């Protein structure tokens, strides 16, 4: 019974965006030697999914989503420490390299996508802003990600997205990674035009697209 209550509390804390409450519940999970994977899968994950749903449908806003993602991350940290301590396994969802393209200095949209992806269990490498095509290529070689995500706020820097994709082709790396793009002025038709694999109009849709591309469930 306590177990169910704690799992419900984890979910509720994520939905309400109260990190202290989520962390306290996660610590109780550990204390009671409950299955941390189960707490993650049945508590935190449905919580962030519900918030994502609310955001996608327009009921919730960006700060709500970001606060919930941070809450989830805080509790997940506690659970993950326990998961690695006990050697139980959580399914790997995938590795994503993210960055804002060359010439563009916008940080926050991309960082939010990174936060939400990692709250969904992705291993995220954030390259930062003003990332040149060569830096992306280098990161793909070094990190061997499943996906690279690129952000561009203005249409004037959006052409850089296409340049990176061409470079990936040139270097015979295009088949090794999925490419997803987003940011203020990027549209799905533009994403298609440059032959990206996916587009996310916002962070939630970006996460869904990433999951879809990697056939990750939930």
């Amino acid at each position, binding site marked *: 019974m306590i177990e169910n209550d704690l799992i419900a509390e984890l979910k509720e804390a994520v939905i309400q965006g109260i990190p202290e409450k989520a962390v306290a519940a996660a610590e109780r999970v550990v204390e009671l030697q409950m299955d941390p994977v189960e707490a993650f899968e049945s508590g935190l994950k449905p919580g962030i999914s519900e918030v994502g749903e609310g955001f996608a449908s327009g009921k919730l806003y960006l*700060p709500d989503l970001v606060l919930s993602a*941070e809450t989830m991350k805080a509790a997940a940290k506690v659970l993950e420490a326990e998961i690695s301590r006990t050697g139980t396994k959580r399914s790997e969802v995938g590795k994503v390299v993210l960055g804002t393209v060359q010439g563009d200095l916008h*940080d*926050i949209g991309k960082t939010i996508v990174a936060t939400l992806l990692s709250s969904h269990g992705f291993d995220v490498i954030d390259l930062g802003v003003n990332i040149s095509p060569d830096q992306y290529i280098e990161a793909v070689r070094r990190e061997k990600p499943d996906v690279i995500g690129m952000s561009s706020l203005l249409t004037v820097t959006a052409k850089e997205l296409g340049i990176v994709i061409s470079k990936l082709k040139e270097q015979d790396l295009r088949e090794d990674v999925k490419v997803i793009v987003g940011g203020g002025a990027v549209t799905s038709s533009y994403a298609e035009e440059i032959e990206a694999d996916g587009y996310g109009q916002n962070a939630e849709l970006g996460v869904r697209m990433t999951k879809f591309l990697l056939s990750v469930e939930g």
Partner: protein
Amino acid sequence: MPIWKSQDLDFGVDAVLRGQGAEPGAIRERSPRLVDLAERALEEGTSLLEPTTLFRELDVETLRHERLILDGGSTLSGTLIAEHLGPADRVISILCTVGDALEDHAGEVSQENIVYGLALDGVGSAAVEALANAACKHFEDQAVELGFQSSIPISPGMVGWPVEKGQPEIFEILEPEQVNVQLTEYGLMKPRKSLTMVLGLGPTMKTGGRTCDFCAMRETCRYQDHYDPHHA
């Protein structure tokens, strides 16, 4: 080039929430934490603002094929310009910025605390919006006193005046390097929390309408009230 020194910027917590893409009423109802953070960000962020408005008023020489030629030879061009500024006798080009101290701080904070970083970022957006609204109002009032009407503010990036065309045109007129605003080779302004616009002044201008009505994102943008001078 004249610099308009603005008084205190008139914006509050609601504008900061809107600057983060949120609807203040809904946030107040369900998330006191986000309201607190916006309040804290407003208090901390205000001290980092360096509001500056650079402007230049030029007579219109002629309108030729959607190109407005101004006194001294500089031009503004495109369908939007022709439509709204075509009847103008004078054009005021305006650049507003709140500097980069706040955005640098917000960037640093975001590495550790993205929720608060987003709130600080929202302060910057709200501040430069408030500055632009105040500047436009100031110039509009001045125009009315002289018996002119003013067009709505027209900004590069609106439908019919692409950023890559409009920003170099405004930068040529204003030379904003003197207030430390740069246009990168990609057409991005540094500091980021900067805005440009032009106002057309004349005896009979097309008035009314909102800036958002001429935006490609008017159907989907969650920041609309924030962009709307009538609500700011």
